[in-house]
Every structure is written in structure tokens, then in C-alpha cells.
């Protein structure tokens, strides 16, 4: 389809797209720049754009005061672990909803989504008490569990949407070919849904990585993730902006890199089925 778009319009849209992208990126850029400034420069009344006295001391200060590697390891364990666990539960669940629906399937889906509308503090006390009694406070597996549970609705919704695109004929053919449920899911459904499963995985790793509320409230020293690591650098007194920026930069760098390298996959997965 050929469309006539005037050059003026094109320039306008390109300009707008860049403006929005820069606007969204500006906080990250500011963090990036601040991380290399001295504390004094970071809170200067007339802020500088580029660091005047380029320094790496914030990073060494951060590493001295707290263990980056330990927190990063916890973040990886929790985000990857909870995503894999979520997929292991979500794939069969989404299979059932997409291919063996009942009258109530739509209601169940809505109900699952509605749990995401509830503010997390609403269940803070009960969850905290349960965690305390089960001795899950400040443990990596406890945090993994809660992360799985809070992201499960999204995982199931996404998978459900992708599975709906797969012709049920092909799964029925597998059944006729002698495949029991396990083989049908593992050898036929999953390979066909790889793009969708991959973007579900990526998105959930990112969500779990960035999750702050539960990781800050349910952990202290041992199982703290990078979000807890960042928050420990914000303090009511003293100068901390530059060190906070350095910590933030260290915390978001891995996921930023991962997102960068997988953006093609993410876009493809998130628009899967939209163009066919």
C-alpha cells in the first residue's frame, strides 16, 4: 500500500518521536552523568551537565559500603528463578485456558488480572506474618516465591494470548498421533510458541528485576536484591546523590544491556499476531 505522506509530516513525526524518546531517557541519562560527579557537584545550586571533575570514587565508595556482587547475584536468582517457576506453572495453565476453556475461563482471567489492581500494601501485613512464621523472611527462595506469585497473572495472560493464535487443529493432530498431554505441550505447543514464551520470559525477568516493594520490605542484608541495594544509599542526612546514582547505574546496567540485546525479540513477541 502506497501512502502519500508529505515530507513535512515525516519530519514532524520523526522529531516528535525523538523528543519523546529523549524525554523518557533523560532521567537515566541524568543518573549516568551524576554517577561520575563529586557529591558537591551533584547537588550544586546551578547544576552542571557534564561532570566537571570526572571521578570514579562513587563506585568504589558504593562497593566499599555494600556488596554489589551479592546483591546482583540475588537479583539474578530471584528474577530468573521466579520467571522460570512462573513459566512452569503458567504454560499448563494457559494451555488449559486457551484450549480447554469452560464457561468460567473468561472470569478466571479477569479475576487474575484484578489481583494486579490491588495495591500491594493491602496484603503486606498478612504476607509479612506468613513469611515470618514460615521463616521465609530475608531468604532468596521466599522472595522468589512471592515474585512468582505477583507476576503469575501477567505470565498467564501473555501466554494465553499467544496460545490463542495457535491453531487447535495442530494440537489435535498431535493427540491423534499418540501424544499424551505432556508430549503435546513439550513437543508441539512450546516449540510453536517460542517467540511468545521468549518475550514473556524477558518481560518478566525485567519486571522481577525492577520490583522494589517486596524486595525492600521482605529482605534485609542476606537476600537483598539490587533494588534494596539502591535504596540503602538514600539517606536522610549527608550527601548521597552521586553515590545513589552510581548504585542505580550499577543496578540497572545488567537489565539495560539485556533489554538492549533482546529488543528485537521483545518487540516481535509483544506485537505477535498483530500483523499476520
Amino acid at each position, binding site marked *: 500500500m502506497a501512502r502519500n505522506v508529505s515530507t513535512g509530516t515525516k519530519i514532524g513525526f520523526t522529531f516528535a518521536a525523538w523528543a519523546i524518546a529523549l524525554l523518557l531517557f533523560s532521567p537515566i541519562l541524568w543518573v549516568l552523568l551524576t554517577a561520575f560527579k563529586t557529591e558537591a557537584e551533584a547537588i550544586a545550586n546551578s547544576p552542571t551537565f557534564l561532570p566537571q571533575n570526572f571521578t570514579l570514587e562513587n563506585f568504589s565508595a558504593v562497593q566499599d559500603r555494600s556488596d554489589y556482587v551479592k546483591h546482583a547475584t540475588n537479583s539474578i536468582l530471584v528474577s530468573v528463578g521466579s520467571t522460570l517457576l512462573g513459566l512452569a506453572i503458567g504454560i499448563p495453565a494457559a494451555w488449559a485456558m486457551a484450549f480447554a476453556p469452560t464457561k468460567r475461563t473468561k472470569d478466571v482471567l479477569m479475576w487474575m488480572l484484578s489481583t494486579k489492581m490491588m495495591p500491594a500494601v493491602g496484603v503486606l501485613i498478612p504476607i509479612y506474618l506468613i513469611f515470618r512464621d514460615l521463616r521465609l523472611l530475608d531468604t532468596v527462595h521466599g522472595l522468589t516465591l512471592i515474585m512468582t506469585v505477583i507476576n503469575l497473572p501477567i505470565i498467564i495472560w501473555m501466554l494465553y494470548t499467544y496460545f490463542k493464535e495457535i491453531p487447535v*487443529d495442530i494440537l489435535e*493432530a498431535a*493427540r491423534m498421533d499418540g501424544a499424551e498431554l505432556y*508430549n503435546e505441550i513439550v513437543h508441539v505447543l512450546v516449540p*510453536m510458541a*517460542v517467540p511468545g514464551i521468549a518475550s514473556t520470559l524477558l518481560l518478566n525477568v525485567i519486571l522481577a528485576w525492577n520490583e522494589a516493594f517486596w524486595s525492600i520490605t521482605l529482605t534485609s542484608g542476606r537476600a537483598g536484591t539490587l533494588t534494596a541495594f539502591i535504596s540503602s544509599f538514600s539517606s536522610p542526612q549527608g550527601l548521597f546523590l552521586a553515590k545513589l546514582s552510581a548504585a542505580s547505574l550499577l543496578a540497572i546496567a545488567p537489565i539495560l544491556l539485556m533489554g538492549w540485546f533482546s529488543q528485537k525479540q521483545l518487540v516481535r513477541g509483544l506485537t505477535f499476531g498483530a500483523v499476520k
Partner: protein
Amino acid sequence: MGSISLQHVKKSFGEVQIIPDISLDIKDGEFVVFVGPSGCGKSTLLRLIAGLEDTTSGTILLDGQDMTKAPPARRGLAMVFQSYALYPHMTVRDNIAFPLKMAKAPKEVIDQKVEYAARTLNLSSYLDRRPRALSGGQRQRVAIGRAIVREPKAFLFDEPLSNLDAALRVNMRLEITELHQQLKTTMIYVTHDQVEAMTMADRIVVLNAGNVEQFGSPLDLYKKPANRFVAGFIGSPRMNFVDGPEAAKHNAHSIGVRPEHFKLSRDPLANAWKGKVGVAEQLGSDTFLHVHVEGLGLMTIRTDGDQTFSHGDDVYLMPDPTRIYRFDAAGIAL
């Protein structure tokens, strides 16, 4: 072995009853075609036999064994879908091998059977391609290959040819018939094309609104239709029906005459129906005339292709008296 027996099988989707009550016995090695208008429940009946749908009530026996509740994977039947339903992420070789892998056959056996099936179906040079790189006819062959390797008790086909062009359909029709003669395995074939039904079947099941109207050999259905529905459905072009006084002359509520059972003349004949030619469809070998008969309506007549008629010609029609079908008020053959 592959005898299939349905006993009082019923199927409803929610409140809607699709199959009121069907009993059917299909013998081992038979080629049975389910035919009927769109939405009459052919696919549903086939899927009940396959186990892809659960019966609401009734019993399904395979080789005398009650399989009503068995999942499809345990029934030992193979199915070829209208959409082919090949596994898009597997090569042709892996598609054909899939049922054998599921049956945990040893690797040498799998290779040997896949090679053999591919040779039989002219697929040898495509074994390493993905289904999307195949033509419709080739995909259909892969689907058939996938069905035959596991030597099922019976094959189930759901309109396997309806996505192919006319010439290919005729070819594949012959190939499937030939396959049946080679394998001598029970086949159930669903179609709404009555030419496919007539040419392929040992016996035909004519379905209408979920009921079996008649079950018999193609010629039985053609010569002795049990009712008006079967009479109208089997035979191409359709049988002509007449009710009222003309039917009363034959002691019937309505009568039917096939297009090929008329004597046609341009000169007046005694007791003949007089009409005017509307459309003349000339196929070369045959000509189908659509004639407006005074007082009786539009009739289709088949004549040989040598005669030429034009719009508005006067013609006289004389039904062959030995081949008039008579029906009572309920449409049952008399």
C-alpha cells in the same frame, strides 16, 4: 482390524443438540463416506469417533472394545485434517516420524518407515523441508504419510481435499482410493461433495441435521433413496420434484425424476410436459437444460452434448415411467 460401532451416540454442545441419536456399524476394511449439507454434524461425528470430542451419551466400540472414554492417543486411529495440521516447526521427515516417536519405536524402524512412506507418496525429495515450503498437494501428502506410518486401525479424513484445486482434487481422490485398496484399512471420509462420496465409498452415510437419513452403497442410494432428502442430495444435477395433481396421478404426495431420466423432444408428444428452455449449460459431453415447465416450475434435464438449444425454445418432456420416485407427505419413499 478396524471395525467401528456406534450405539445410540448423542452429542450436545451446551443446550444445542447436534447429534440426536446415531447407531452405525462400520465393518473392518470398509471405505465409508459421511456426506451431508454444511453444519449437519459430519465433522462432529468424526471427532466423536476420534475422541477429540466427548459423547454426551452412547457407546463407541473399536474392534468390539469400548473406547467411549478413551483419549484420542489411545484409540489407535489416524486423522487427516482439512487444514493439514502439519507441525510447522518440524521438517517433513520429523512430521511423518512424529507418531512413531510417540509410540517409542526404535530409530531404525522409524527411518525405514519414513523412507517407505515418503517413497510411496512421492515425497522423498522434500524430506528436509519445512511444511511452509510445500504446495497444498504436497502438504496433503505429508498429512497422509503421517497417518499411514503408524498403521492405525482406521483412517479418519475430514474434507481433506477441499483446499485443493479441481485437478489436484481428482488426482488425490484417486490416490486415496488406491491407498485404500493397497492397505485395506478401514477409512471414514467426510465430505460435502457428493461426487467424492459416490466415487470413493463402499458405503455412504447420508447425514441431515445430525440424523442418518440412509446408509448404503452408492448405487443403492442412487437407485433406491429412502426419502426425498437422500433423493435430492445424491445425484448431480439434483432430482426434479413435483407435487400436487401431477404427483397425485401417481398416487403420491410428491414425485421425483432425475435429470437423466427424461425423454426430450422438440415436437409435441402425448402426455408430455410442455416447457420453454431457460438456460442451457453446455459441457461438451452433456448439456444441462433448465426448462420452465407450464404449471410445474423449473426442471433440469440432461441431454447429450450434440444437441443445441437456445433460450426460449419450446420442448416436450416425458419422464421415464419406470424411473419415477414416489414420496408420501412425510417425504418417505413409497
